[in-house]
């Protein structure tokens, strides 16, 4: 990928700031959530748009493997199943999935399970086909010695590519691996740099804005904010941390150069190994790293703050949801 020639190819102006985005599995549409309490399907080549009335901010979007079904996870705690291709979408199914915000969704590699996480600190597995509850993971009883459980809001979830476990990460920076068979937490460790208690403002800042594996599952990537000096002004640096999955050890922390202020709201790993991050806070940037090199190899300034990033299935484009209501599609290379 010749990321130095990355450039904007499509730009859609929406009427409300955006909060999330995701390409459909066939890559023809981008679905995005907005502050208008709706999700929108945008055909980025034809510039047509269809609304999905979710009545909530939706930060998490997931699809069935065939792309026919969209599942939205709302900040009202509701999971909603939709036909992703409908002309006048109506929810197929609505489930009160969590108490409080749903912060993230993930689909198992075989496409059968949907995992949802959020503020109630419970990991829930659903049959993606019919929405029935499959399992709940709560962790070990509170107060027991060495108990592994989430003590704060769960920010993200990802299935391991081998399909036997999943990983969750919370506000406090704790990562937990869970067995899909037993629901028992296998191990826990902390991404020290991605969470901090700000003693001045007396609040915890951090958490995992993205959590994803590389294709063979040997590495786990987590994005967020590090080096926070003022939580309430968002003074810190965007960061993507790479872990060795087997050992649960941090391998490297990818940082911007020159240092940017804000959060890495989204991350993606290209099949050629390039790590891509989307930054927002003080303006916005796309950031690119060569694997194993901590300093960004290239940064492209965006017209406004990024709030979400998704890599196109064809890996030639990324979608960036921005605070100014624009959904921007960047080509990762020279003009066609």
């Amino acid at each position, binding site marked *: 990928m010749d990321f130095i020639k990355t450039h904007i190819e499509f730009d859609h102006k929406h009427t409300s700031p955006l909060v999330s985005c995701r390409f459909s599995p066939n890559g023809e549409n981008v679905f995005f959530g907005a502050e208008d309490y709706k999700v929108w399907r945008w055909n980025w080549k034809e510039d047509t748009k269809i609304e999905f009335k979710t009545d909530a*901010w939706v930060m998490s979007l997931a699809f069935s493997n065939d792309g026919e079904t969209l599942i939205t996870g709302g900040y*009202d705690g509701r999971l909603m199943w939709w036909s992703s291709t409908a002309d006048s979408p109506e929810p197929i199914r609505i489930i009160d999935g969590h108490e409080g*915000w749903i912060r993230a969704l993930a689909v198992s590699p075989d496409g059968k399970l949907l995992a949802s996480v959020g*503020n109630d600190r419970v990991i829930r597995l659903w049959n993606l086909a019919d929405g029935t509850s499959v399992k709940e993971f709560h962790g070990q009883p509170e107060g027991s010695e060495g108990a592994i459980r989430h003590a704060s809001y769960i920010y993200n979830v990802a299935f391991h590519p081998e399909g036997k476990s999943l990983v969750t990460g919370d506000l406090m920076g704790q990562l937990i691996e869970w067995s899909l068979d037993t629901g028992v937490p296998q191990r826990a460790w902390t991404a020290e740099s991605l969470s901090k208690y700000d003693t001045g*403002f007396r609040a*915890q*800042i951090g958490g995992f804005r993205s959590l994803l594996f590389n294709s063979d599952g040997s590495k786990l990537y987590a994005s967020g904010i590090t080096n926070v000096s003022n939580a309430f002004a968002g003074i810190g640096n965007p960061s993507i941390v790479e872990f060795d999955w087997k050992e649960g050890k941090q391998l490297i922390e990818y940082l911007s150069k020159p240092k940017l202020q*804000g959060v890495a709201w989204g991350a993606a790993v290209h099949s050629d190994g390039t790590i891509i991050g989307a930054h927002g806070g003080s303006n916005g940037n796309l950031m690119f790293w060569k694997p194993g090199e901590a300093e960004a190899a290239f940064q492209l300034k965006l017209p*406004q703050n990024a709030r979400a990033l998704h890599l196109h299935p064809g890996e030639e484009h990324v979608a960036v949801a921005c605070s100014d209501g624009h959904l921007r599609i960047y080509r990762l290379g020279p003009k066609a």
Partner: protein
Amino acid sequence: MKSFAMCGSVEHQMARRGFLGIMGGAIGLGATLPQSLTAGLSQQNKQMLVVFLSGGVSQLESWDPKPMTNTGGPFRAIPTAVPGIHISELLPKTAQHMDKLSLIRSINTRNGDHGKGSYQMQYGRNQMPGLEFPHLGAVTARSLERSNSPLPGNIRIPGGGRSRDAAYLGPRFASVGADGKPPANSTRHESLLSEADQMRHAFQRRANERFLSMRRTAETDLYTQSYEQAMQLMDRREVFDLTKEPEADHVRYGNHDFGQHCLMARRMLENDVPYVQVSHTNYDTHNENFNFHLEQLAEFDTPFSCLINDLHERGQLSSTLVVVMSEFGRTPKINVRYGRDHWGTAWSICLGGAGIQPGAVIGKTNDNGTQVIDREVNHGDLFHTYLSAVGLDSSSSFNINGRELPLADPAHSPIHELIR
């Protein structure tokens, strides 16, 4: 304006002496209140509790939610104990007590500065160079003074020492910090035997009496009274010891700082302190307003609702005004960092107890909270309302060395329809 309290008086000097100085300052000479105003007030045992949410809590995430609008943010509004009144879902426990509380949703203080806003809300006026006015706590402590109590009348939680926030009312009404522990140096030194200590005090009293028989003045009376009151307070040092509260209450209120501070506030009110102020920090959420309000208001909701519940069940709420305030609110517009910025144009407070009509909503903002559209009030009106709610005539004055100095800004008046 000259601060009459900073005149080198005995009263002032004593206020600078650590614990004994602090406690000695709890009595003495100073401003006089018209007899008609003070008469009967101590019998009513009115008190005031202010919970100050530092940094500026968002009205949209607390008392005036606007869900499903372009400014509403991600949180929902929930019903409360009062049909028709909805508050943010971040306050589920407080919502159950809204039948004891009221809301003012139409505050416009025309200010977005922390320092100025903090002054406005706690002094009831705009800050003006060269002029010193007493803090709400000092006005309350002076007006609702318990003349026979050795305890300070104006307690600030958390904190330590005595502040200089009483202006012309004098340091004895200035706030004294309490942190849940008995004040330092408030016990007899272990090297001093009890008998020797008693003999020491007896000798001092005899010397005082001899001196007073020949040269009695107001200052000598003050000195003697202060000394005796400090001695009495040493016997009551456990009032400040939060460990004396039942363990179950520590758990119920929460073992975090704000939980313990609310429990301390309950203890102070039970001990008949006229004014108690608790601070909870911080709400200055320019970045990630929603995540931080989720975090902070979760910490606020449980102990605050415990406190309201306990005051109610113990029969204290009918005589105790409770006010939850900030220096301002936060912008309806959500910024690029999911933050909200400073906003004094259209915001809210919650209050209840004492003379406040319960279950009321005063004023209204427009559909997305960008402006007040009914019954606009400001910090001056609020200050009058607080004083009226504890039975004071907020249009009356203190007589300070012959000068009439109004309790509250005469340019404003109470929200009469909120006072019962």
